[in-house]
């Protein structure tokens, strides 16, 4: 994975994991790699990897079975919620970008209809 070094690494990996869950590359209830393996997989610091799992757990995207490891949530609603959050972010960025370029709503809708 290519990182943007201006943004904290843990945020980027969290987004990547969320994306993989949304896309179905990581299905609900799947066991995730251990912290150390996650670090090796993304070539990141092991302490950053544990922080990633801590944050994902706090957001209830993952949960830990004591002694067994970390798993993707089994809650389908959580997945939909994540999808909604991420799409909201994308749309807001897009609208902001188009506004900055001087497009008005009707023009944007026109472009979308042509391109989508």
């Amino acid at each position: 994975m290519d990182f943007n070094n201006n943004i904290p690494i843990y945020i980027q990996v969290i987004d990547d994991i969320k994306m993989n869950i949304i896309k179905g590359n990581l299905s609900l209830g799947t066991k995730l790699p251990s912290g150390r393996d996650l670090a090796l997989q993304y070539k990141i610091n092991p302490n950053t990897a544990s922080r990633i799992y801590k944050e994902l757990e706090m957001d209830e995207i993952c949960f830990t079975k004591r002694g067994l490891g970390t798993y993707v949530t089994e809650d389908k609603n959580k997945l939909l919620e994540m999808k909604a959050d991420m799409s909201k972010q994308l749309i807001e960025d897009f609208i902001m970008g188009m506004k900055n370029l001087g497009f008005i709503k009707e023009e944007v809708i026109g472009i979308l209809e042509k391109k989508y």
Partner: protein
Amino acid sequence: MLECKNVVKKYIAKTAVNGISLEIDSGRIYALLGPNGSGKTTLMKMVAGLIKPTNGSITYQGLPIGVESKAAIAYMPTETFFYNYMTVRDVGRYYKDFFPDFNEKRYEDLVQRMDLNMKDKAKSLSSGLAAKLKIAATLARDAELYMLDEPLNGIDIITRENIITTILESAKENKTIVISSHLVDELEKIIDHAIFIKNGSLELIGDAEDLRETKGKSIVEIYKEIYA
């Protein structure tokens, strides 16, 4: 775990380290950053016990640098430290004689992973392979603190990645790693903490993610800001 208090190292003509105070905690990966001549190697050599500070104190687990600390700290110098006649296997034996914590099995694994061959002669190794050999020998010690001085210097990009992965694999919970480099880019993702040294003084020390978050900049950008 390691504490430097107002450490100074003066040579006749210049002051290499000019009053550095810092603490290194267990289980973390640190980057010791700064351009050539900023004092990184001098500081590492003092921690390794190879040279003595002119002033100030360095303690490891509460004790001054000495026999105990040397047994727990594995230092990899920038220079090559093996003789030309040695094979890769000989380097392992040589290390084993010096360090009781040297793990032969681990050395074999590392040698293999680094695409080295036990029968290779040290003198016939390319600079990249020689650098890998130094790292294999150093990481094969079961030390608490590893200090790697410029492990990525003059090494091609594929080999660098190979070395970084090996370092990450060695970074077990109770192991602490300090990597000095002026190649900040390569270390960006793997470090917890960054230590910036400028003209022998501590310029900045901090958690890498916190620095990125508070400054909105990469460690590379911060490096440029400090040294440009």
